């Protein structure tokens, strides 16, 4: 037997090199895009982080949560409130985002993760709805749906001082986080932990009989998911320079699901395709038809019909089967 172990064929995730190429593309685009497009792409990159975060929960461990708006909103307010009341800088405020995401995910996870499928969906939906209600109501804390505005301090990185008000700086700031998030999650997916997550998706009960405390791993996945979702919320607040109770609203819970379904659940970067398609769809279609949400509903029905695993997942599956 050779000393170095044989690498099993791993085609479940989007090939890493493709993603890296895409990231380099984003790097270049930042310099050549016109202002409006650059802003749109910045938003899309933030959504990609949210989509990836959600994919850890939905795609990797098959937990269909409708409550991720809680993490997104909390992440945003982590930034907003820490800046307004504690006067922290930009990077520390993001730590508050991550921290809030972690704590909320831990609490929610301990209550929700052990529930069966249907109960899990309902209870996560209840959490988001209640948080939304509170956020709208506690206007002294959250500003209600008018929200609270931020004055961003300069970002000092050693000898260099940058301002996030400069769109290019903002763009690359987000891009760096997207890249780091992808690398971390990709690494995790290829680690033993990632394999365990995959097996949960494949056959949860069997895994128990292989000696794994499945609840613990589902909880970990849920928490990781919450942390990255909160990160995206924080970045969104920084980019928009404000946070409002709207960040807890239903679209932020349902869009990650749609992104993952279109792009491919469990593939981590697959949902980015969903982000791009849906962002463009919303940008253009909502302009000419007020009732474009009907199309949105129809899209959901169609992609679910096509394949439970989303477009990319479906293509990967087909390729894997054809290999046989």
């Amino acid at each position, binding site marked *: 037997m050779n000393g170095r172990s044989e690498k099993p064929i791993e085609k479940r995730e989007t090939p890493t090199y493709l993603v890296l190429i895409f990231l380099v593309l984003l790097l270049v685009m930042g310099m050549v895009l016109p202002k409006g497009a650059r802003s749109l792409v910045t938003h899309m990159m933030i959504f990609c982080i949210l989509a990836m975060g959600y994919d850890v929960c939905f795609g990797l461990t*098959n937990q*269909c949560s*409708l409550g991720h708006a809680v993490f997104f909103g909390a992440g945003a307010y982590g930034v907003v409130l820490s800046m307004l009341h504690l006067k922290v800088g930009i990077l520390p405020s993001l730590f508050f985002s991550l921290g809030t995401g972690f704590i909320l995910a831990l609490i929610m996870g301990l*209550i929700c993760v*052990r*529930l069966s*499928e*249907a*109960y899990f*969906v*309902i*209870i996560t*939906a*209840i959490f988001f*709805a*209640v948080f939304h*209600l*509170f956020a709208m*109501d506690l206007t002294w804390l959250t500003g209600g749906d008018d929200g609270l505005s931020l004055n961003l301090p300069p970002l000092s990185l050693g000898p260099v001082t940058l301002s996030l008000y400069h769109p290019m700086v903002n763009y690359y700031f987000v891009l760096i986080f997207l890249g780091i998030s992808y690398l971390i999650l990709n690494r995790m997916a290829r680690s033993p932990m990632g394999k365990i997550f995959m097996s949960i998706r494949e056959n949860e009960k069997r895994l128990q009989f292989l000696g794994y405390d499945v609840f613990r791993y589902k909880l970990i996945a849920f928490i990781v998911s919450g942390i990255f979702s909160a990160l995206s919320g924080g970045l969104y607040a920084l980019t928009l320079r404000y946070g409002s109770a709207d960040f807890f609203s239903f679209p932020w819970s*349902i869009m990650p*699901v749609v992104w993952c*379904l279109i792009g491919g659940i469990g593939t981590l970067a697959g949902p980015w395709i969903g982000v791009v398609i849906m962002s463009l769809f919303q940008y253009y279609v909502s302009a000419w038809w007020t*009732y474009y*949400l*009907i199309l*949105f*509903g*129809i*899209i*959901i*029905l169609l992609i*679910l*019909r096509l394949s*439970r695993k989303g477009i990319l997942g479906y293509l990967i599956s087909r390729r894997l089967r054809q290999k046989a």
Partner: protein
Amino acid sequence: MPEIVSTTLFLLVNGLIWGLIVALIAIGLSLIFGVMGIVNMAHGDIYMAGAVLSFYVVSMLGSFWLSLVLVPAAIILIAAPMERFVLRPYEGYHSTTMIATVGISFIIQQIALGTYGGIPKKITNPWPISFNFLGVDYPGYRFLVACISILILAGLWLFLYKTSYGILVRASMQDREMASAMGIDVSKVLITTFVIGSILAALGGVLAAPINQVFYLMGNDVILLCFIVVIIGGLGSLKGTLIAALSLCSLEGVLASVLSPVQARAAIFIVMIIVLIRRPRGLFTE
């Protein structure tokens, strides 16, 4: 009778009656879950559709009573194809089906927005008398709502426990595979159950319309309440859902007088969390 007692009594009765309406809707949800294994996320929008359709019947035909008959008929035309062509293909994949119902929810809401409009409107009170009970002036319409709801629930009970078709539905709730193996045409049972569940929601909407305003987003608040009710009562347990609906709505009604509505809702939420921690499958399921 001292003021505080009569006010509390008033709120309690109000809450109970609202609880009856919510019970109708939540039982519909529970019934669908029991047989199909899915939670219909568009259930609240069917409630809304019932209210909207009732508005049209009342404004065009002038009779509230007619809407009690016509709306369920219309809902059959919406719910049956929905089950057959949209939900059936996803059979077995519960998360997928539930997301599909979210898609349906968007569609129904937008259609309502487009046809009925975005402005909340009221239906005139079909029985604008009030009578005095224990020193409190009580609106007659609400009394009517109570009677009608109880009649509907009684009818449902008769159907499930006294008719042969009802037995089939209950058998399917217990064990779908077994039912199928015994030769029961499960697909008929699925459609029937879904339609009945949806009619219950729609009737809830018809009854609620004169009390609340008819608004294209009214389903959202109600579905949240229904979710909390079925979590506490236990998905699939009709008795549990009924008890949970009555207790929660009366509790919320009474609390809303001393606290703000949001705080009352928060209290209910906390009750739910406590129940969930102790009994993850609800109070009334095994």
